[in-house]
């Protein structure tokens, strides 16, 4: 086994996902198959190979730091599931 039920639960917690017991069972099986498959990368010796995170030679794209109009508050809040016209509202954080 490449991954256990406990590890799936741990990863789900890191990813902020609640999984039911049935989901944990199913995902453990599927993730195990996928991780077993990707382990074929171990056949390759990559010592000294530089990692590719980006395919184009892009450098930081800077622009001048000038004040410009930004998204109006009303529009920025428009898709909020809960908002009070000034900010997004969330369940109490500090007791």
């Amino acid at each position, binding site marked *: 086994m490449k*991954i256990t039920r406990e*590890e*799936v639960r741990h*990863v*789900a917690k*890191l*990813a*902020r*996902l*609640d*999984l039911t017991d049935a*989901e944990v069972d199913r*995902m453990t099986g*599927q*993730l195990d*198959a*996928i*991780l077993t*498959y*990707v382990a*074929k*990368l*171990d056949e*390759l010796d*990559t010592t000294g*190979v*530089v*990692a*590719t*995170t*980006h*395919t*184009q030679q*892009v450098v*930081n*794209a800077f*622009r001048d730091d000038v004040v410009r109009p930004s*998204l109006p508050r009303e*529009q*920025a809040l*428009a*898709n*909020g*599931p*809960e908002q009070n016209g000034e900010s*997004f509202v*969330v*369940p*109490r*954080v500090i007791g």
Partner: protein
Amino acid sequence: MEYSSLTLHEALGLLDGGQVSSVMLTESVLARIDAVEPTVQAYLALDRDGALRQAHQADQLRKNGQAGPLCGLPVAVKDVLCTTSMPTTCGSRMLEGFVAPYDATAVRRLTDAGAVLLGKLAMDEFAMGSTSENCAFKVPNNPWKPGYVAGGSSGGSAAAVAADECFASLGSDTGGSIRQPASLCGTVGMKPTYGRVSRYGLVAFASSLDQVGPLTKDVRDCALMMQVISGHDPLDSTSIDRPVPDYTSALQEGLKGMKIGIPREYFGQGLDPEVERSVREGIVMLKDAGAEIVEVTLPHTDYCVAVYYLIAPAEASSNLARYDGVRYGFRDRSASSLLEMYSRSRSKGFGDEVKRRILIGTYALSSGYYDAFYKKASQVRTLIKDDFARAFAACDLMVSPVTPTPAWPIGDKADDPLALYLSDILTLSANLAGIPGLSVPCGFNGEGLPIGLQLQAAHFDEEKLLRAAYNVELRAGLVGKKPSLA
């Protein structure tokens, strides 16, 4: 004749000649949608009134001599591109009802060119999938055989074009999501070079792989769409500042002087015999057009799926962390604490495939596994990229199948994620290497299902792709062949 069955450039010719108005074209397409959409199921949102309003405006602009290059032509876009005039769901309950506060640059370029925006097209949730069955709202059907998949993740974009429900569409391609549905539905589909088209307003899946591109009825239409959507955008810091060539001038008959490579690894096990035969016929067409055919090798092909299914989920797990039920998207209202709200909202808002990829990605990036999975995959990505660089030193283009098989019945492969991942083997290396690729129809199988031919080129060699595809199209003679819908 129905106007909706015309190609984009034919309709443009009629508009330019004053034989038809944009309102007439738009009404024709809307009537076509009414007739076939119950079967095809390509549209997640249709803006009937807005389309007719834009068509009236386009006719006015044309009268005033202010017509842009696509003025008055009705098009549609994959629901992964943000639009202010319609909701953007990404095929997910998570974004049901979300209306973006800005338009994606690719969409804005289309409407700035005068195109009429009809609606938003069905897709796999967050573009994760190869069949569009992961769409939370509807599953598009293959117009050539309803009940069969249209492919994915841009399944709605391919089905709508194939069914004449728009003159052209936009999709997005992270591992084949434009080319694969184009192949399965018998349309042209191009994934441009990474950075050629702005990703601003494209809901992010895997940021180092995602690219917006067109799906069209023929190669000339592809060139016309590419002309409009390509170019640098200050709002996307990964878009490349490089002049956009005149793509239609690349559409020349004959391929003399062009060297086209056959990557031997792309004709291996699991390739459907009818697909192989069709693609081999396509290769003969390229040869007949004057191209020199050579054999090339991409030795790390066998590792592409493994690399992709670590890197794409890793990037996705990071990108999709933004869906927390606070600023937009679904919120579970039963939660009493903030943490509970995050996890319940995400668990109810995301579908299975999205959860699966978030879990793989989180695992591959997590402490203790990062080196073994994400870093290792990124190193092998370098080897894959180097394979392409070596191959393109020996040829101008590469020719291959797009998918190992034609379309299959909806539901057939839904329970085996790994089997579906493996079917992406011929397309996802282009995304890993950042190169452009295109699917052009080259034949049909015995069941009447379309088969596409894939062409791949070096970075920014879209003109060569278009030229070769144009020559295949001329010889295959399939433009105008339509599915017998409704």
